């Protein structure tokens, strides 16, 4: 049994951590949060120079040719740093979509510019508030032209490319759309976490290129969401670990009634519980990474439990982080709210944990898994 990352993979993780500690301390996340800039361009460029955007893109398309276990290690560090870049939507979803469903021509066309950071990809599934089932999609494609409205689209204001779910002649399908082309109108929306930007996109006869088989958009979307869920779980895990470390450090240094706050059982026992939630999230995320790295039959269940536990752990830890900091935790000046905000964006990004729980029971029943 070797249910752990290899030394080489851990070394890659350490390199990523060192890079982000230098180039993306929390002050960088705050800078984007407080400014009108949608993302930190220099950091995006720097990540591309490190080869991160192209981590799993084969070398023939300009990527680094790593596996998903390596990408998971990078994701954990991006999460820990709350890096304000459009990494997840572009790498975990758009790039994966081209790799899994693209034709050779599409791979040649898109992957090199994704790998070097020139292109930013995203995905546009949701159209309105509520659970975004594929049945609810109203956008339409006719004769290669897309019409409809998508909101919210993460990074919709800055992405150059999007995978869009729309109904074609043979039913729901996925399409690649050039967001810089004609027929595309973008309107920025206020984000719950302004270090990550959101937009509404109106498509009016925008040229749309079929991705994968026409009429099979629902299955393909589910597959792609599973892959993105595992990688996003690592971002959530990294952020949750940072919440935990910051809270522990603060409660050890803060004195009340003549003792460190972290010496009170009321705090110690909650820190123990938080640690348990974090470790469960780590274990389930590892399981997801294992499934993603070549054990596809288990990916359906593994992606669900990775996403559910990572979302719940980060929600809990970011809430407790503010609570255990006391009054200062509620100030703009302290960084607790950066985690509190990111937690909710990451939990909502691929559909709510409640939707993933429903999906999990379907999959347990289908597989009769114990």
């Amino acid at each position: 049994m070797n249910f752990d990352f290899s030394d080489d993979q851990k070394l890659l993780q350490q390199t990523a951590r060192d890079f982000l500690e230098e180039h993306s301390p929390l002050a960088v996340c705050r800078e984007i949060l407080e400014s009108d800039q949608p993302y930190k361009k220099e950091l995006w460029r720097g990540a591309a120079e490190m080869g991160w955007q192209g981590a799993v893109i084969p070398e023939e398309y300009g990527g680094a040719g790593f596996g998903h276990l390596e990408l998971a290690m990078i994701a954990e560090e991006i999460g820990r740093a709350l890096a304000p870049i459009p990494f997840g939507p572009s790498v975990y979803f758009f790039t994966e979509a081209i790799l899994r469903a693209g034709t050779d021509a599409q791979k040649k066309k898109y992957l090199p510019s994704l790998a070097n950071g020139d292109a930013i990809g995203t995905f546009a599934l949701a159209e309105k508030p509520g659970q975004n089932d594929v049945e609810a999609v109203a956008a339409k494609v006719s004769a290669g032209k897309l019409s409809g409205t998508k909101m919210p689209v993460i990074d919709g204001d800055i992405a150059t490319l999007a995978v869009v779910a729309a109904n074609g002649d043979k039913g729901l399908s996925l399409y690649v759309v050039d967001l810089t082309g004609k027929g595309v109108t973008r309107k920025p929306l206020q984000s719950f976490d302004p270090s990550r930007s959101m937009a509404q996109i109106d498509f009016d006869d925008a040229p749309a290129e079929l991705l994968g088989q026409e009429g099979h958009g629902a299955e393909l979307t589910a597959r792609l969401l599973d892959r993105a869920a595992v990688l996003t779980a690592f971002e959530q895990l990294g952020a949750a670990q940072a919440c935990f470390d910051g809270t522990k450090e603060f409660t050890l240094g803060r004195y009340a009634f003549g003792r460190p706050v972290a010496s009170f059982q009321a705090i110690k026992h909650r820190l123990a519980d938080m640690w348990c939630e974090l470790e469960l999230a780590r274990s389930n995320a590892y399981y997801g990474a294992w499934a993603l790295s070549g054990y596809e039959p288990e990916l359906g269940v593994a992606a669900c439990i990775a996403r559910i536990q990572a979302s719940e752990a980060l929600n809990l830890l970011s809430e407790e982080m503010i609570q255990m900091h006391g009054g200062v935790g509620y100030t703009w000046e302290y960084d607790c709210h950066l985690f509190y905000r990111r937690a909710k964006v990451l939990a909502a990004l691929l559909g709510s944990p409640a939707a993933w729980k429903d999906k999990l029971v379907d999959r347990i029943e289908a597989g009769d898994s114990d």
Partner: protein
Amino acid sequence: MDFNDTPEEAAFRAEARAWLDANAKLRGPDDAPADVLGERAGDKIIKAAQAWQKKKADAGWACLTWPKEYGGRGATAIQSVIWNQEEARYNTPPNIFGIGLGMCGPTILTHGTAKQKEQWIPQLLSGEKIWCQLFSEPAAGSDLAGLRSTAVRDGKDWIVNGQKIWTTGAHFCHWGILVVRHDATVAKHSGLTYFVVDMHAKGIEVRPITQINGGQGFNEVFFTDVRIPDANRLSEIGNGWAVALTTLMNERASIGGGGGGSVSDLIKLARRVQIGGRPAIEDNAVRQQIARFYTRNKGVKMTGSRTLSALSQGKTPGPESSLGKLVGAKNAQEMAAFAIELQGTSGMLNDPVETSGLAEWQARYLAIPGLRIAGGTDEILRNIISERVLRLPPESRADKGMAFKDIPTGPPSR
């Protein structure tokens, strides 16, 4: 990253399986579970368990990690886990040697003299003698070092008086490990001494404790002027706490979070009962709960896989393994409570005949509170995690440095 055995582990597994195939039958779906928590083992079970243990000992499969000179196999920790996984697949008698082999044996091997090891270890290993643990007292549970049973020196013997509690198997055991206070004028951890006691000695009385589920797995053990030879003392006078810690560390490694029922059983129940005229499994509130239980169970299991990976790499898992029981037992209790809720008004019943397939959950719900207490309560496990994993400051202790006799006590419990 993979879940497979290394070639060496696979070879060991095949060896274990070959011996088991030749000596036992695979456990069928209708065979009784190996876990008999809360059941009072009778003569028949004890004889069968002893015969099986003897068979294993003769073939070198009794205590894998123990040194060969004491009848062990000198095996690695991961090999021991592999053996346990394999043995669990076979219909073997209930394991009544867990305390002896898991806790008493390792303690004697660590702290005993050559003569003591020779006297006790071979018969312990072969199952000829069965052992129990006499640690907890009515007034000393989580605060074990607050125990009050006394030992007074009398020539070559010690005279022991007091009461022990929660002693699994005391009614059929031959030997017990015992911690008692020999000096109440020093600080509480310093006044303790550790003995091995003959359970048939004069002055020992064993009374069963009836649990909330009606089972009688535990006993109270009363000591009235019990004479223990000084030769049965383990380690020095006053070193009892250090020896007890050796025992307890082995205990935590051996108590898991099992016995809670599976999510697939819960799904079967949710298909069988209805909500609003439809199978409960179609109800979203039910699905949300099932998904939560499954996610947490799997998280505990995957955390176990990470621990096994550490073992496989030759590392020693530490206090991190407290997570399994802390999360697992609570999750099991919530699952059983939810299953009873799913039964609607039939949740009032506990009738294995008339409501077969349902009452198992009531039985579990009655058994699980014991899991959350035995071998370290949820609260003690949180202390262990916060102090030994997270390195947070220790609890401030009101009795620190005080002579034991001066430590305040509450009113006597019943």
